[in-house]
């Protein structure tokens, strides 16, 4: 059977934060350029997840992201605490890339409340992928990927549906005339 690899990137302030949630991760640096930190999660015998860690504190790594982000289906912005830095990171990301971006955060009611309270982020709540650190590595990363892909599908299909609907409406009006 064909083995599929899903390549994604996590934009994170200090890469070692991720070890607070998944200490068992085997993080290494890619052998070939652009020499980024990465880890893999085997979801299934024929499905693997390859996650690049892009540390915003390391200017060198942040610049190397240009060679990865345009060629992957989506990226994740890791949120441990909600502050102005995330907002500016989110903005700079969209100024630089067209690749879709989701938020990744721990399933924490306080954090959820904070997001809802923030007017600018409340509309993006659907784009926040919550994970439970108590879940197994495979389960949590499998669910994150699944959620992201569903959202991605939704984003892709939504404009098409809208176009179709408008076309339908216009044809109806034409026939009535």
């Amino acid at each position, binding site marked *: 059977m064909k083995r*599929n690899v*899903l390549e994604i990137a996590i934009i994170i302030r200090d890469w070692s934060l991720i070890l607070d949630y998944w200490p068992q991760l085997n993080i290494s640096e890619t052998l070939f350029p652009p020499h980024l930190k990465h880890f893999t999660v085997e*979801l*299934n015998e*024929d*499905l693997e997840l390859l996650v690049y860690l892009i540390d915003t504190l390391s200017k060198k790594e942040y610049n190397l992201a*240009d060679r990865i*982000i*345009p*060629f*992957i*289906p989506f990226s994740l912005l890791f949120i441990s605490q909600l502050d102005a830095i995330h907002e500016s990171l989110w903005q700079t990301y969209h*100024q*630089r*890339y*067209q*690749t*879709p971006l989701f938020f990744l955060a721990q399933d924490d009611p306080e954090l959820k409340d904070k997001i809802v309270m923030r007017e600018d982020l409340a509309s993006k709540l659907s784009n926040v992928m919550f994970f439970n650190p108590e879940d197994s590595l495979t*389960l949590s990363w*499998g*669910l994150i*990927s*699944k959620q992201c*892909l*569903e959202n*991605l*599908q939704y984003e*892709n299909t939504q404009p098409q549906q809208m176009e179709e609907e408008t076309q339908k409406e216009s044809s109806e009006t034409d026939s009535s005339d």
Partner: protein
Amino acid sequence: MITVAVLAKEKAHFDLLITQYNRLPVHFRWFESGEHFLEHKNFDEWQVVWVIGKSFKWVEETLALLNERQIEIPIVCSTPEPKQDQRQLFWQLKVREIIPWPVHRQELEFLIKSYNEIFAPTDEQEKYAFQGSLEFINGVDLLRTFTKATSTGVLYLHWSERKGRIEFKNGQIVNAVYHQMDPLTAVLIMASWEHGFAFFKEDQFVSKRMIMLTNEQIFKECSDYKKETQRLLSTITNPNTLYYPHPELNYEEFGPNERKILREMRKGKSITMLAESYEGDINFILKKLKNWADQQFILPEEQYLQIKEQIEEQENASGIKRLMQKLFGKKEIENISEEPERESEDKVASSVLEYRFARKDILQEIQNRLEDMF
């Protein structure tokens, strides 16, 4: 040792003798006029009387006065370029020798050396009570040693062509002679020397007190002078890089001394080199150089080469090209100013990186598998 009474209206003439010819076993003593000289009745101590004056009339009057008293000491007289009738008059006034006052220091040296029977040099070692190099001792410390010893005499300081002397009376600095400087400035300059050598001659015949400051006040002035030199050097950016005069500098706007310095700079000289080679007041020349650098009369090497290249380019361009440059120069400038704006717009447009992931079929497959799994 012979002693010579120098009757000179201008003290500069006497200073020239004592600074340039202090190696000779001759003691020169200055008298401002014939009357002053005649006040000292003990004429036996003088071997020669030397009357020096720019004005022919003053020399004539002085010689007449000496004649009246019928002094038997041989008299030598000097004026610049004495004419035939003037010479005859001097001979009539019983002058032993007429030495036309030289224009140059070198001429004077040659002249004095030619009077071998009077000014024959003796062994140097015997003459000095103290001798040493200025490289190992600070000028001020050297002066302090003589003030503590309450010595009377003359400290000679030589640094290649620079020659000066500082006179002590019972340990007090009373006078200093260096070029045409006033006595205090002469002390300040000589005390700042870090090269050359010094030697001390004990001598009872020293000038009357010309510096009215106490020794401690003089030393304070010396340290202030050095501090000012350091401060001025620190205000000049890159004092060790080579500086050149501006290629389009109008030398006629400068005085002869300034022109000399600027001409020396044509081959490139650093500020520190210039300050070291300057024989006069070092702080004065540093202020001047700083001012020149600020006004771009002198330029650091890199800037100088750029300007020189531009000028050469303009000179080599044909007449038509120069005319075209004049006519269209403005338009070119306008075009240049527009270009960067366009570039920056392009940059903004190109800074957004396109989404290049195209394998949507694979994503679909992965999604299906994930749905099966979870």
